[in-house]
């Protein structure tokens, strides 16, 4: 008898992903897909694709999807959740998308305590546009716009998003994980699941930051990419939970019935 030990999650479509070898995006997609399937929420989830390498996420996630402007995911998610509080809403974003051009939208959605989940893929670089400096590019790290390495006298310092958001009252769950090793992938899945559960339990805003490999624009091999996450990224971006709450947070609370009746 043959036993099936692995199959594609129904949280993802059949379309083949077009990410580079060794890229972290595909792993994160799979985890989000599995979590949606396991929680039985795929049908009532609305996902938001970013502008970045994962712009095609609207083809990959097997739920209703929308593709907005660069960095505006949290604002779009806000509009969606307020109109459809019965749906689960997630915004998938890269570091340029979330922490540079979309920083205002990120902080304010978090500060309002919107009942949404953000999947934040931090690869310390602008992948899609060919490897320019990101707000999370490490000091000394080379990019196509910091060819001699990021110099704080010219380009300032990288931003730690979880730490920054943890200073706010409203967020209910903030965690940083990575997907560079199998053990970390399992932990990442746990965190993503918890983030979605926080939303399902109506506890408030949740965000999971995932340190992710971009071998192509780091100009390294996939194996070296894994090393880079371990040795360079994790020391600067420590893994762990930055905020968890018991119970519910008194923040914006759309009234499901009323709003729905009027849509």
């Amino acid at each position, binding site marked *: 008898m043959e036993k099936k030990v692995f199959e594609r999650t129904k949280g993802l479509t059949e379309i083949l992903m077009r990410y580079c070898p060794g890229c972290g995006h595909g792993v994160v997609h799979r985890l989000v897909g599995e979590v949606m399937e396991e929680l039985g929420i795929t049908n009532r989830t609305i996902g938001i694709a970013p502008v970045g390498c994962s712009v095609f996420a609207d*083809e990959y996630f097997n739920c209703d999807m929308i*593709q907005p402007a660069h960095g505006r995911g949290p604002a779009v*998610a806000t509009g969606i959740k307020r109109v459809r509080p019965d749906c689960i809403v997630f915004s998938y974003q890269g570091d340029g998308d979330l922490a540079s051009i979309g920083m205002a*939208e990120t902080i*304010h959605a978090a500060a309002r305590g919107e009942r949404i989940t953000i999947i934040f893929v931090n690869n310390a670089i602008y992948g899609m546009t060919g490897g320019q400096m990101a707000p999370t590019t490490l000091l000394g790290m080379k990019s196509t716009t910091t060819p001699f390495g990021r110099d704080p006298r010219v380009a300032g310092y990288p931003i730690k998003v979880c730490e920054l958001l943890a200073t706010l009252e409203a967020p209910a769950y903030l965690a940083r994980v990575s997907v560079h090793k199998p053990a970390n992938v399992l932990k990442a899945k746990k965190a993503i699941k918890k983030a979605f559960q926080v939303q399902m339990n109506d506890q408030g805003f949740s965000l999971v930051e995932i340190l992710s490999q971009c071998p192509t624009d780091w100009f390294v091999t996939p194996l070296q990419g894994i090393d880079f996450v371990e040795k360079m990224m994790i020391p600067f971006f420590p893994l762990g939970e930055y905020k968890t709450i018991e119970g519910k947070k008194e923040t914006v609370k759309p009234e499901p019935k009323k709003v729905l*009746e009027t849509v």
Partner: protein
Amino acid sequence: MDEKLLMKGNEALAEGAVRAGCRFFSGYPITPQNEVPEYLSWRLPEVGGTFIQAESEVAAINMLYGASACGARVMTSSSGPGISLKQEGISYISGANLPIFYANVMRGGPGLGNIAPSQGDYFQATRGGGHGDYRVIVYAPNSVSEMGNFPKRCYDLAEKYRIATMVLTDGLLGQMMEPIEFDFEPVDPAKLPEKDWALGNAEGRERRVIRSYDLRPGYLEKMTLKLAEKYKEIEEKEVKFEAVQVEDAEILLVAYGTSSRISKSALMLGRKEGIKIGLLRPITLWPFPSKIISDLSERIKKILTVEMSLGQLVEDVKLAVEGKAKVYLHGRPSGGIPTGEEVLEVIKKIMKS
């Protein structure tokens, strides 16, 4: 229906939107439109709707993008500087074929400008305003009554064509008080036809995707040509204008919004003196009433556009006239408001020339 109310223009606009079924508003404060969000902040919760004061106009329009994608009747409002920021979202919304309604209560520009009434955002409104090939239906009210009644027209067209619609007005109309009668029954959004494209619960149907991009070679051109078909139909069917005493006119004024009221008083003053003045008021600025202006220019050889801008409306008039008549401009930019007497003086000069 029948009740006559005394309202400020901005409040009429807000109340008109709610009666037309608006249940979601996000915006950011800016003078001279603040009465709109202030009014909706208490009025929308009354009808089970959502009001959000966004962190910026950029966020506000993107909240609309999400809410509209779920099928709600949505609104935002601002003035020039804020509408500039909203152009990003309006372009995406247009590319994604979503229906929205918004208002620009114009003030003096460019830059921070001033808070005086102005019409300097005509180009921005009628040419799309953001990046890419797209159009927005633009209604230009000239009374508080129209401020209150046009949102309904806008929502109906927005949903019929899945297009962005707007009211282009100015601080004067926004701030002044006039009697208003709503000319439609309040809309219950729950009773509107189901939107077979809206995002939501995918149980029992195919998943839906809303996007404004297509990176495959040739596909985006096809997508935009589809938009063009829609725009063509709108240009054929949805033009609205008001013609005043054009039958015997020897000079035709073309003006919209506040400057159309000023032009009307110039018309009345001039008629008393025996000058045969007519007025053509575009009610929709896009689609523009080109045909009627073209037809009138066969007979009326002097046309004067009156606008509170440097010469924006005049370009559309010239395009319509195609050289068949002489087109003159009286434009007062950045908060300058012409008077009826002033316009009449200009008319007299033209008649002598």
